[in-house]
């Protein structure tokens, strides 16, 4: 067990050996990884020191203060948040050694090939086929809603290896080389005009069996690790009062008396109150987590956020009046990361529509709350037979 003092020593040693002011960014990041200061709770040799997770904050703060470069975590979020913990849990020693270091340094970007046109909310119904052929698997299918696919070197991939079993049982989890023959990435344009996501077409893509994560047919179990880690992010950072969309609208209100009507006033104050209530709910959630007693409230935050963002942005367009008739720019672009609030009211309105779909639809979240938090009974199931016989 390493304690905080020891960690600080390691940081000092790293900085002494690699002056952030004069060291190449990538070289520094590799050295930091090798010093076990990438993610301190990971094992020694894999970027960590087997230390308690909360000590990472100490490392990050010290390095930040010393002016060290970071690994641009927003750019490599899927690798850090989803691929890495899954590889750590289910990967072979070879896989861990091969993948984790360039993943963390950002030399290799990762993406996620899970959702399909026919398997969205019902992810386990996915139909991309993987057929064994010697030491390889041959994969064919179509994936969708893949962010970073056009910049990614690797993908985590779910494919069906046995269609005769019930849907959760015939799935296997792979690491897919995005530069392999048969992988085609096409931008997927959204109603905002931009293309944040991609479609990925897989045609007889060969994946070596050595790139399988977990046992054949155990893919759903492995995926649960990935998806659980996706949800950890929810709750997010503390925001100040009037942070986010409501602040933009409140400022517009204050600066434009000519837009005001009594009806809009009543609606704005109501939205302000809901936004502040949701902000306080987030504060309370973080206090619960800090006190070591996480409540089930987290399940609701995304649902509430989506509804609020949609209501505020819909209101904003109405408030704007004539300016609400206009849009900033329809030009197709492929942004590196999404910015919910940076553009105009029309963009905010359209983009917010995705909040209740991406990362679990609001309908699925309500099911989860009803069943897991309130303990209500599940629907009668009609999808327990072999995958190949399911209606679709």
């Amino acid at each position, binding site marked *: 067990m390493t304690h905080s003092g020891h960690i600080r020593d390691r940081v000092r040693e790293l900085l002494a050996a690699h002056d952030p002011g004069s060291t190449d960014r990538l070289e520094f990041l590799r050295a930091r990884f090798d010093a076990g200061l990438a993610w301190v709770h990971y094992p020694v040799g894999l970027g960590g020191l087997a230390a308690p997770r909360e000590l990472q904050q100490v490392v990050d703060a010290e390095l930040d203060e010393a002016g060290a470069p970071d690994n641009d975590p927003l750019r490599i979020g899927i690798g850090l948040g989803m691929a890495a913990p899954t590889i750590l849990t289910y990967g072979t020693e070879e896989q861990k050694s091969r993948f984790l270091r360039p993943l963390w340094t950002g030399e290799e970007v990762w993406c996620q090939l899970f959702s399909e046109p026919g398997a969205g909310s*019902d992810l386990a119904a996915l139909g991309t086929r993987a057929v064994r052929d010697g030491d390889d698997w041959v994969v064919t299918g179509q994936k969708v809603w893949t962010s970073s696919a056009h910049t990614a070197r690797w993908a985590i991939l779910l494919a069906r290896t046995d269609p005769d079993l019930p849907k959760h049982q015939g799935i296997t989890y792979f690491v897919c080389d995005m530069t392999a023959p048969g992988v085609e990435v096409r931008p997927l344009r*959204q109603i905002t*005009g931009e293309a944040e996501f991609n479609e990925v077409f897989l045609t007889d893509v060969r994946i070596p069996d050595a790139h399988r994560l977990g046992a054949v047919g155990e893919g759903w179990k492995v995926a649960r690790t990935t998806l659980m880690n996706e949800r950890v992010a929810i709750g997010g950072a503390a925001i100040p009062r009037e942070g986010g969309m409501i602040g933009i609208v409140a400022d517009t209100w204050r600066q434009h008396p000519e837009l005001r009507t009594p009806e809009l006033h009543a609606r704005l104050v109501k939205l302000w109150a809901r936004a502040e209530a949701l902000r306080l709910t987030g504060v309370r959630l973080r206090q619960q987590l800090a006190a070591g007693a996480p409540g089930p409230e987290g399940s609701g935050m995304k649902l509430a956020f989506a509804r609020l963002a949609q209501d505020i942005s819909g209101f904003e*367009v109405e408030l704007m009046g*004539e300016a609400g008739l*206009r849009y900033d720019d329809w030009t197709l672009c492929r942004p590196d990361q999404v910015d919910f609030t940076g553009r105009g009211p029309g963009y905010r309105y359209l983009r917010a529509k995705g909040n209740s779909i991406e990362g679990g639809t609001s*309908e699925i979240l309500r099911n989860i709350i009803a069943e897991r938090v309130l303990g209500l009974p599940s629907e009668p199931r009609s999808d327990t037979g072999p995958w190949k016989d399911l209606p679709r």
Partner: protein
Amino acid sequence: MNLLYSEIEEDLRASVRAVLTDHCPPSAVLARLESDSPCDMDLWRILVELGVTGLHVPEDRGGQGASLRETAVVMEELGRFVAPVPFLGSTVLATTALLACDSDLVGSLASGTTTGALAVPLTAAPGSPFPATVSASADGLLTGRVTSVVDARAASLLVVPVAGPALYAVRADAPGVTVTEVVSLDMTRRIADVSLASTPGVVIASGDQATAAVEAALRAGAGLLASEQVGIAETCLEQTVRHVKDRHQFGRAIGSFQAIKHRLADLWLELVCARATARHAADALTRQADDADVAVALAQSECADLAVHAAEEAVQLHGGIGMTWEHPAHLSLKRAKVNQLALGTPGEHRMTLGHMVHLLMDIPSRR
């Protein structure tokens, strides 16, 4: 009061729908989105052939001698298809304004040989002050600017409110006219800023007649826009019902899940009620009923939010596919959202409505 669709109206609807089904499929509308020609003038000419541009113009003034009820049915169908034609700007707004003047120009709009636009911001509501951003010089030349004019780029004739008040007819190709398209949220019905610089024009009305003509146009526009909103909502509901019957998740059509069913039932019910108000508005405008203003405000209050609600539900219940550019759901969403602002927001119409039905807001002062 007749809130039904007559047989003649249903025949008209069938004709218009047949044309739009053939010539205005979603793929065609999508393909045109970013083109430089905002309106589909080929489609427009076919509609002109059908006679839809003169329905509410008397025969002796060059029209079909039908009424705004029939024009409202056309609006419903155009809304269903989110059709990129200048019907609102030319046939509803400009034509109604000209009808209220003694101008012969109405005939060419009714026959479709000319396309017009009323130079007011699309957000102008019935009952708002006469727009006076253009002024006439002593020798009758016009100078000024009107922002956010609907269908302006397709128009060869601009009907321009001028401080005075007066109403002028201005040729779009006259000297000093600049029509600058802006980036519109609804790319299927774009707006443009119109500038006039010492532009010659012809006075077609002045004084109370000019004021009344603009008011009549805005009132008819708002009233008939309610029918378009009903059409939008109807197509959103139909497409969504079709999708949730087809789309299977968890081994079932998602339309068999009760939460989805109840939401669509609620939406259907909203549509049923809104349709009654839209028909009522078209009928009251046709009859020039005493409470036509109430009927228009009511219809906008109910139909504008309905259309937005229907389009938002369509996007949500189509799941990811509804968020894509290639799926037509966003066409309805953008049209519905812009319509919510057009010719008075629901909130503005309710403010007017409260005033008209003597639910005054006259509030004793508080803190």
